[in-house]
Structure formats: structure tokens, C-alpha cells
């Protein structure tokens, strides 16, 4: 069965310090993994994606994520937080059991950036 666990519902960092948002997944297939960001009253924007190529994935706005199969993790990082990074972040797993796609969202991590 496919599932996604975002280990922290809220993360608070100071501006200019590193960001780490944790995501663990389970999948019976070779999944694709994504991180999306949602600013208040806005739709979801794709930050980055892993689709079985390089395990270290670079995304927009300085975000990165590393796919670690042995740990079933796909944590999102950024070296230095900016005020504009304050938003909700969703880890997403996608797989194709039986030829049809199944997409599962995590419950989200709300990132607060303190000036």
C-alpha cells in the first residue's frame, strides 16, 4: 500500500537558517516523489520531483530533496530560509499499480519563518 508521512506538522526557523522538512513514504512499486508548496489562499506549486533519475533533486527557489531508498525518505532542504518561504509544504508519492496512477498527498508541514 502507498502512503506518505510528513513527520512534522509545523516547523519554525529563523530567516537565514537552514530548512529541513521531513517526509517518509511507502510504496510497493517504483514511485515518483514530489514536493509542492501552497501559499495562503493559493493553489499548489510544484517545487521539485524525483522520477528515478538522480537521487539528489534540485528545485525552484533554492530547494533540494534527496531520495533515499534504503531509508524510504525524501526530505526537503534549503540552506537559508527566506521570509517568502513561509507556506505549507506537501510531500506527494505517485505510483502506477496495474497501469493506473495513484497519487497520495501527505498531511502537510506548515513552515514559519521568523525575522
Amino acid at each position, binding site marked *: 500500500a502507498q502512503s506518505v508521512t510528513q513527520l512534522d506538522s509545523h516547523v519554525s526557523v529563523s530567516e537565514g537558517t537552514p530548512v529541513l522538512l521531513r517526509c517518509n513514504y511507502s510504496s510497493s512499486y517504483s514511485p*515518483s516523489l*514530489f514536493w*509542492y508548496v501552497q501559499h495562503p489562499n*493559493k*493553489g*499548489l*506549486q*510544484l517545487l521539485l*520531483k524525483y*522520477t528515478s533519475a538522480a537521487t539528489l533533486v534540485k528545485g525552484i527557489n533554492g530547494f533540494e530533496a534527496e531520495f533515499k531508498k534504503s531509508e524510504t525518505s525524501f526530505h526537503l532542504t534549503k540552506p537559508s530560509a527566506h521570509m517568502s518561504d513561509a507556506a505549507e509544504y*506537501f510531500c506527494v508519492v*505517485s505510483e*502506477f499499480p496495474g497501469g*493506473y*496512477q*495513484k*497519487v*497520495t*498527498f*501527505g*498531511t*502537510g508541514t506548515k513552515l514559519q519563518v521568523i525575522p
Partner: protein
Amino acid sequence: DAGVTQSPTHLIKTRGQQVTLRCSPKSGHDTVSWYQQALGQGPQFIFQYYEEEERQRGNFPDRFSGHQFPNYSSELNVNALLQGDSALYLCASSLDGRAYEQYFGPGTRLTVT
């Protein structure tokens, strides 16, 4: 290049009524998926349309139905509305019946009183 658009932006309905939400996919995309996002939750998959057919469905009752038109735009219909249907409804478009990369619209905020 227009992204995914949804209408209306906000909607208020009464229990028992019916509602139709609309989505136009990103230019060149032929697949539309619908999600329900309750307050404080992650989006939940409702169903996906490709080639004007419902390809797969999440764990939602038959009160939720949809349609895809030849121009790839889509509608989500919800009958016999319940207060629990209050949520942000998101439409996402992608290519070729797959969603390696989905583009999301801004959503329709539905409030059921």
C-alpha cells in the same frame, strides 16, 4: 501560456443543493484530476479524467461525478451537498493520462451551510 484555471473562485451553497465546478487545463494538457482539500488537510484524490472518460476514482461517494469535454476542460458535480463537503476543490492537469508532473489551479472554495 495560460495555466490551469478554475471557476468560480468561491461558492456558498445550502445542504441538499447541487454544485458544478469548472476547470480548464494548462494548454497542451489532456488529463484532469480533481482533489478535495479540507481545512488543515492535504488534498484527497477524487477522480481523474482522460480522453473524456473517468480513468480512476478515489474513495468518494457517487454524489461526486464529473465530465471531460472534447477540449479537455472538465466539470466536477456534487449532488445532495453535505456540510462536510465544505472544502477547497483543486483541479490539476497533466499529459497523456499520467501525472508525473501535475499543474494545479487556484481552487474553488466551497462552503456548505
